[in-house]
């Protein structure tokens, strides 16, 4: 058969897993990872803290303090595992849901809240954190990531870029163009797709008839599916892909197989389009519970540790909430700031007219 046998409608997808939902540590022939107890505890702490930030944000939205929130509930392991695989020199391009990765890049959670509160469209300095701004136009950041990676190549930098996107995003022309650019230039970029099974109300079948990680084969670079609810596997697979990229072996597509346990955003009502059963099934694969079970069963952490983390989470939640409530609105003239880097006569004129107009109300 000359028709490419790998078109793969029939091949069952493999899933890299290092920690089962029950918290059993399992081996994988291609990916393994040596972590200290401390490191695993630290990952657990990350997972709990980012979930808490997320819960707090959802609550703040319910109380009218945020215009919207896109919850990461269920995707903590995908984000922490991949986020902790990064080195400082690596550059990250997120979508709008990577609060866990932002956490790994030391972006103040309140800055994320600010965006959803409507005080800015961005808010942090991407260069300071090597964490780009959230991008809302689906898929467009994938090309930025490849361009940045082309820059890394030209600089001879020992670094890679990693770009996040969802299952739905794989349908956008831009994402596929990014695959082409990356493969043709052999750019040091890792495509990290969080397949959370849903693009708002649309199940994966509306975007692809084969497992997403196989998309890469059509462009000539490796694709791998990892258990997105397994923080160890996500860490191991991403670390490997980033290393390959840094070493000049070009791009990798990682499909983190996970589940959006909450609504698409706080504006969404998933009961209109998916069954509660599905959620229940995924709850059994919770990304945090399995780490807890693992730590506990293997006596790598005790009750005191878990309580300490919970307490830390409570404090963090409180802190984030408190600072969110006091986030100042930008002054009206901020509308005109930073539109251009250089002077711009039209902006200057409009700003002046507007300030005169506003002043009229004070008289």
């Amino acid at each position, binding site marked *: 058969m000359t028709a490419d046998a790998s078109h793969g409608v029939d091949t069952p997808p493999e899933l890299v897993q290092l920690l089962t939902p029950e918290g059993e540590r399992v081996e994988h022939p291609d990916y393994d990872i040596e972590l200290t107890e401390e490191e695993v505890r630290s990952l657990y702490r990350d997972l709990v803290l980012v979930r808490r930030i997320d819960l707090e944000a959802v609550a703040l939205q319910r109380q009218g303090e945020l215009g919207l929130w896109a919850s990461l509930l269920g995707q903590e392991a995908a984000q922490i595992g991949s986020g902790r695989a990064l080195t400082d020199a690596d550059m990250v391009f997120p979508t*709008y849901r990577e609060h866990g990765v932002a956490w790994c890049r030391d972006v103040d959670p309140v800055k994320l809240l600010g*965006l959803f509160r*409507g005080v800015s469209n961005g808010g942090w300095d991407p260069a300071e954190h090597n964490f780009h701004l959230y991008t809302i136009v689906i898929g467009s950041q994938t090309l930025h990531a490849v361009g940045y990676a082309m820059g890394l190549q030209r600089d001879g930098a020992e670094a890679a870029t990693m770009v996040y996107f969802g299952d739905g995003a794989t349908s956008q022309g*831009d994402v596929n163009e990014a695959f082409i650019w990356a493969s043709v230039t052999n750019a040091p970029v890792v495509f990290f797709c969080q397949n959370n099974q849903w693009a708002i109300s649309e199940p994966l079948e509306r*975007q692809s008839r084969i497992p997403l990680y196989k998309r890469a084969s059509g462009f000539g670079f490796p694709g791998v599916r990892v258990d997105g609810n397994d923080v160890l596997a996500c860490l191991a697979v991403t670390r490997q892909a980033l290393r390959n990229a840094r070493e000049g072996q070009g791009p990798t597509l990682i499909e983190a197989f996970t589940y959006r346990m909450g609504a698409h955003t706080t504006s969404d009502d998933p009961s209109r389009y998916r069954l509660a059963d599905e959620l229940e099934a995924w709850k059994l694969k919770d990304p945090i519970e399995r780490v807890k079970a693992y730590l506990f069963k293997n006596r790598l952490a005790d009750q005191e540790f878990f309580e300490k983390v919970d307490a830390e989470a409570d404090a963090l939640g409180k802190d984030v909430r408190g600072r969110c409530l006091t986030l100042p*609105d*930008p002054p009206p003239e901020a*509308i005109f700031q930073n539109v251009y880097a250089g002077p711009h006569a*039209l902006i200057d004129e409009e700003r002046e007219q507007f300030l005169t107009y506003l002043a009229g109300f004070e008289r």
Partner: protein
Amino acid sequence: MTTLTLAKAINEGLRRSMEDNAKVLVMGEDVGKLGGVFRVTDGLQKDFGEDRVIDTPLAESGIIGTAIGLALRGYRPVCEIQFDGFVFPAADQIITQLAKMPLRSLGKIKLPVVVRIPFGGGIGAVEHHSESPEAYFTHTAGLRVVACSNPADAYTMIQDAVRGDDPVIFFEPKRRYWDKAEVDLGAPGLPLDRAKIVRPGADLTLLAYGPMVKTCLEAAAAAEEEGRDLEVVDLRSLNPLDLEVLTDSVRRTGRCVVAHEAPVFSGFGAELAARLTERCFYHLEAPVLRVGGFSTPYPPSRLEDYYLPDLDRVLDAVDRSFAY
């Protein structure tokens, strides 16, 4: 007469169109089970099936491109672009294909594709969810561009758009989706390319479309208290313009203020101002003034009340006009 929200009025109009003509399809992201993020297509998939109400892959170029193909096969697709700011991945298909293919074919091809776009701000949303991209399309020859402002018009305009043989960019004022009004489900509406004087007045003409019609009506009501009699005209059609109605109004009043949410600079108001000035030069007591968004990207929502022209900004322009 039935009381309907604007969103529901479009829903009813779509339903009627689909009942009347089996070739009418609805397609877009989340238009099926979810009924669209604004519920405009609510229930249609249940009643007309997945072949006629299509949840598409997440790609706007694909939505318009395949809609063109379906139209070439005799279908009449109504595409939903989920939010104004997400129409740009489809810009190429709209501008180079949808708008130009009929001429390319010397009239052999008709492309009855409707592109519905919820547009405008005022709902406290994040970036890209509050924009007003109409000027990109009014400048694109081959497209008809319309904007509805109220439930009754929305109900008939969507049906007319679907019935016509030209591609139509159909703007829906998203912050008015929940406004309710009486709708006569039996009455035919004004033709799609006609403007409507929604409030007659003698002293100045306020021109608006979509969400700003309501704002202008409020401004006119407020001005009345100050003894100014403003006429408000709802354009309804942006391309083509109903110049008869517009010219007549401006000649009568001698003054004109145009309001839209999009940035003023190089926006659609410029065309209205330029064209009406040509036609009404000797009648104008003041230049046609424009009120609109600033020449900046749409700001974060905590600033949108400053950015969007409101009653005060409209009245300020009215004052400036009378100052001439």
